[in-house]
């Protein structure tokens, strides 16, 4: 009891050390891992985020008319681990530092982020391919830009024409 008297007197002089929240905004570090943010413009529908998600919070559902996929991330199942943002190759999924996610119980299934990602189109035959957002086109398509926007069938044909050019079967001087 007696050694504590010094601490008590010191506490009286130092005053309260309480954070002023909720009467003033709370300090949030910019590296704080809050909820996820999805950018449909950059998504290539690889599905890595769905594969690594620790809690199974991410769903990719094909739309009925077949023009794209619906991306859904349910905040009430997300454990904010950040693996999806770490593994996303294009940076479509990032972790913001927003933690003000309190909501009423009735809204628990509406508390999700969703985005519609449209399929890309093959520049030759018009078939549906995975989307090719500009950020990917600049990074990966530099090597052979004309082949980058083709569907797999057209790409195979293009490679075959490059590799195996038409050659005459017989030598020219045979007559």
């Amino acid at each position: 009891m007696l050694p504590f008297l010094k601490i008590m007197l010191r506490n009286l002089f130092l005053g309260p050390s309480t954070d002023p929240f909720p009467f003033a905004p709370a300090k949030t570090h910019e590296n704080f891992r809050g909820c996820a943010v999805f950018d449909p413009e950059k998504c290539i529908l690889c599905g890595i985020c769905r594969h690594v998600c620790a809690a199974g919070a991410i769903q990719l559902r094909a739309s009925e008319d077949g023009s794209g996929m619906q991306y859904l991330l349910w905040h009430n199942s997300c454990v904010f681990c950040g693996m999806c943002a770490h593994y996303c190759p294009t940076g479509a999924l990032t972790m913001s530092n927003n933690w003000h996610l309190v909501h009423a119980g009735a809204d628990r299934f509406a508390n999700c982020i969703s985005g519609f990602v449209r399929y890309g189109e093959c520049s030759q035959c018009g078939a549906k391919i995975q989307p090719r957002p500009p950020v990917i086109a600049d990074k990966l398509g530099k090597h052979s830009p004309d082949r980058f926007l083709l569907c797999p069938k057209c790409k195979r044909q293009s490679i075959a024409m490059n590799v195996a050019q038409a050659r005459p079967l017989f030598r020219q001087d045979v007559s």
Partner: protein
Amino acid sequence: MTDIAEAVFAILIFPGGLFALALGLFLKGADRKALARLQRRVGPPLYQPVLDIIKLLTKETLIPTTANETAFLLAPVLGLTGMLVTAAVLPIGGVYGGVPGLGDLLVLLYLLPIPAMGLMLAGGASSSPYGALGFSREMCMMFAYEMPLIATFLAVAVRVGGASGSLLSLPAIMDYQYRTGPLLFDPVMLPAALALLFFIPGTMGHGLFDIPEAEPEVIEGPLLEYSGPLLAMFHLMSAVKLVVVLELAVALFFPNPLVAGGGGWVLANLAWHVCKCLVLLMLSVTCFRAATGRLRLDQGFKFFVKFTSPLALASLGMAFILR
């Protein structure tokens, strides 16, 4: 007729009843606020206990099916009315002379255990094992802290009585202190004052002696099954008990008012009395709560038997020898 009217006024308005309730809730709020400041927190507003009581009146009352319903409902009523009567009987220096014939140390010795009895009855009537545990702990602690209380009473009585025997009447003890100075500054009575300082948190169940209502151990003990207005009555009982115990300590050791005789100085004397109660509260309850944890039951018992009772008995012995 006027006696009955005066008695009713004393029990319902001043100094029992509304005054004791208001003072008790204010002291409890001050204790919580001071505890928070000692722990470098902001703490609740001073009138927080009043809000607690108002909130408890809006909850529904649940009674366990296997509980003894009469005893369950009777326990808080018994405790609260007993404490209100006790508060009406205690004299305040310069303000209120007490009820003649009832301001006696023996009467107080009968009236002071009533809240503990209320808690014990509550624990027993709850038909829950935690309630029974709380009941036995409360009984054990009551035996423990009554010892220094009785020894202090006897020490004060013998000291005040002097050569002509002992004086048990509180107004007479206070008159002696008006004449020869407070007993707090009397070196013979200092050990008894220290014993009473430890008695206050012991009987209130705070700090070191939060044994019958220990939260992690017996989950609120006797009060486990209470909810709503009955729990509000228990909290009010605890508040009035705090007032009674502090006023008793002040009356025994330092009742001197600012200006003796009452009259126009009644309000000043009352304010001085409240200040004294507040300072005693901070010293005895708040500092203990901030600095210490909780003792085990046997450690608490041994503390009272081995440490505080010898102090009070030493005072009694010296007063006896020097009379």
